[in-house]
């Protein structure tokens, strides 16, 4: 099978990316003044940053063929822990580190239940999500944490460095790091091998349990980080504030699977997936499309983007 280079081949291989570019062009033509501006580009990168970060975690767990449905609850918990600590006067860097560490442990528990007892990750993490929801509710009394949050806690979420929002920088850094990890390190290779064939990986001497546990733990850490960053961005933490990210993060990760030919969960794919979702939401609002129309268009565009690419690849039958 020789790689036939050329436009049509490129289209096939990167159809989803082209769909994304097409969307950008359409928006730019319709509202050049508002959409295709440096300001809005910066704006979009900041808006997708949280989604990208949490979706990176989802991608890690997906790469070992498992699911973590507790990412939303973990983000909510992470945000609340960080915000409460900030209110209590803890050093700001601790407010960001502590939730990440705590959720690393929780993720490990997820992984441990899944690998040790061979419980489906769906049911494990769904139950964990319920538990965490209850805990967060108790921890906050159900109320939004926002009073007495020090200004310094909101720096990371709101400030820019040389015009670039810190959030966007963190997102890009994490994306590059995890892309490198998944693509070029033994760790990433092992995760993909486990995802491809668990038994064969085990026979090949890979400690399947250890790596699965790590994938869950990293995923949970990223979710917690997303939560604190969200709290920092909003200057408040809502006990269910991160829940909405759960479905979106999987939407991004699944959209991302279609970006490259192999069809496996992958970091740049996830980034592109999140970016497409973000650009759609941004552009449609700027065009002042009514909400229901935004939903209709978003759904249709996602399906079209994926279908067109599949047709291009001749996968349709």
């Amino acid at each position, binding site marked *: 099978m*020789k790689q036939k280079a050329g436009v049509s081949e490129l289209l096939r291989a990167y159809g989803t990316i082209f769909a994304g570019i097409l969307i950008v062009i359409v928006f730019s033509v319709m509202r050049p003044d508002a959409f295709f501006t440096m300001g809005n580009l910066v704006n979009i990168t900041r808006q997708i940053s949280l989604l990208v970060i949490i979706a990176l975690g989802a991608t890690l767990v997906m790469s070992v063929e498992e699911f973590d449905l507790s990412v939303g609850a973990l983000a909510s918990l992470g945000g609340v822990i960080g915000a409460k600590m900030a209110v209590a006067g803890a050093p700001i860097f601790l407010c960001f580190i502590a939730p990440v560490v705590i959720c690393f442990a929780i993720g490990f528990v997820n992984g441990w239940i899944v690998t040790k007892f061979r419980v489906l990750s769906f049911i494990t993490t769904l139950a964990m999500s319920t538990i965490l929801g209850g805990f967060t509710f108790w921890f906050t009394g159900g109320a939004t944490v926002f009073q007495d949050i020090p200004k310094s806690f909101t720096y990371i979420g709101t400030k820019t460095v040389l015009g670039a929002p810190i959030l966007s920088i963190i997102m890009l850094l994490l994306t590059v790091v995890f892309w490198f990890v998944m693509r070029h390190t033994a760790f990433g290779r092992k995760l993909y*091998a486990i995802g*491809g064939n668990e038994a064969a*990986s085990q026979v*090949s001497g890979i400690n399947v349990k250890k790596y699965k546990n790590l994938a869950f733990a990293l995923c949970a850490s990223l979710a917690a980080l997303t939560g604190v960053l969200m709290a920092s961005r909003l200057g408040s933490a809502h006990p269910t504030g991160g829940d909405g990210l759960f479905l979106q993060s999987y939407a991004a990760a699944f959209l991302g699977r279609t970006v490259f030919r192999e069809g496996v969960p992958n970091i740049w794919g996830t980034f592109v997936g999140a970016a497409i979702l973000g650009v759609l939401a941004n552009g449609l609002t700027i065009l002042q499309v009514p909400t229901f129309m935004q939903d209709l268009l978003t759904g249709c565009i996602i399906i079209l983007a994926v279908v067109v690419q599949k047709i291009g690849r001749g996968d349709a039958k």
Partner: protein
Amino acid sequence: MLLQTKKLCKQFGGMYALKDIDFEIAEGEIHGLVGENGAGKSTLIKILTGVYSLDSGEVWWNGSPVRIENPRQSRDIGINVIHQDRNLIPAFSGVENVYLGMDYEKKAGFAVDWAKMKARVEAVMRELKVEIDLSLPASALSPPQRTLLEIVRAMMTECRLLILDEPTASLTDKEAEMLFETIGKLKARGTAILYVTHRMDEIFRLTDRITVFKNGQSAGTVRTADVDKDAIISMMTDNWVSETLTVSRKYGEVLLDAEHIASRDGIVKDASLTVRAGEILGVFGLGGSGRTELLECIYGYRPAEKGSVTLCGRQIARPSPGGSIKNGMVLICEDRRGKALVGSLSVKQNTVLSTIDSYARFGVVNERKELSDTQEKIETLSIKTEGPNQTVLQLSGGNQQKVVFAKALMSRPKVLLCDEPTQAVDVKTRAEIHKLLRRLADAGSAVVFVSSDLKEVLEATDNVQVMAGGRTKERFVNDGLTAEQVLACCYAN
């Protein structure tokens, strides 16, 4: 002619898997199809059975052209098949697997009549003299049992052409005999049989005519009576001749000593093995004697209940796959697709899978070295592939097996546990694998060689350890050893 193909072509991603195939099979004929790994045999079969569509060319059935668009149509016109890859539903019982894709027996027009289905399957099994517990799910059956189940399935309905793609690959002689007997009966009834195998004696024992495939093209069809084994092999392989290996029989120290192994699931009851440097130890037993499980216990993949494993003089407390590889022992699995390869990954990534850590500095993989090492293995094992980055599942069966070997060799093992290492590989590759194992042994490694093909065991090994009922029995020196002696030990109770 019952079936004819005319100028059949099939491409995968721009490469011809089949090119201008003209092929025919007559009623009541047993037609052998041979060729190296990747020659296109299975592809032809998949086209005839509606699994793949053809790119160009025609298929004629009973003197008129037909279009076979899906497996159902193929069966409806009278073709039954056992594919090379077993097609069973893991969670389904024997009865249901046999009825897969067939019309279920029904009562009251819609409810499945389980009793009637079971009775029919049992009737066919009795006729074939097959014994399988039909209540077990396919996932609990051993590979040979799965093959038997597929044979039962193929015999469920009357057919005019039966296609068998390497049916004996995981069968022991006893089960193979049963299959041959059935084939004989069918032939007598006028059923045509297309028989694909890499085992030359089967070809000469069973077939009337032989077609040889080479690189996706037909190298000709001959009457079996007119040719001999060497002629066929040279047609397949551009006049390659097998060389006889010289055996030194000089052994070094004991590299692997496994004693009184019992597996937790009770399949291996009490088994011991000793192999020395320079030795190829054959392990033979009937299907279900627990050889696979013994190797898996020693390797650490299957939990063991009792026993001790001593590797290169060091007692291993709790064997694990990772530890075994580190200590210089590898396992070539019997179940290639299930346990040996990660199908979705490339040839390269599979090759370095168990040694990936050694390519990594501070966790980062040195991809140049990885690529060059893989390239080297592709060349030394002459793996037929587009390149190191091809997805391994796209290789033909035999080439996949070579990748499994490539992976094993990467860790420079002192002890190789090989479970059916030559299943599904062509004669040439098989000889190459034998040669490779011999070379490794001569270089100081120890090899444990499990095969269901007794002749191969006698041909390739130095000593033979017999296993039966989960226990190791006698150990023979393979010097003038005969099949009868080994089998007698297997059946002795």
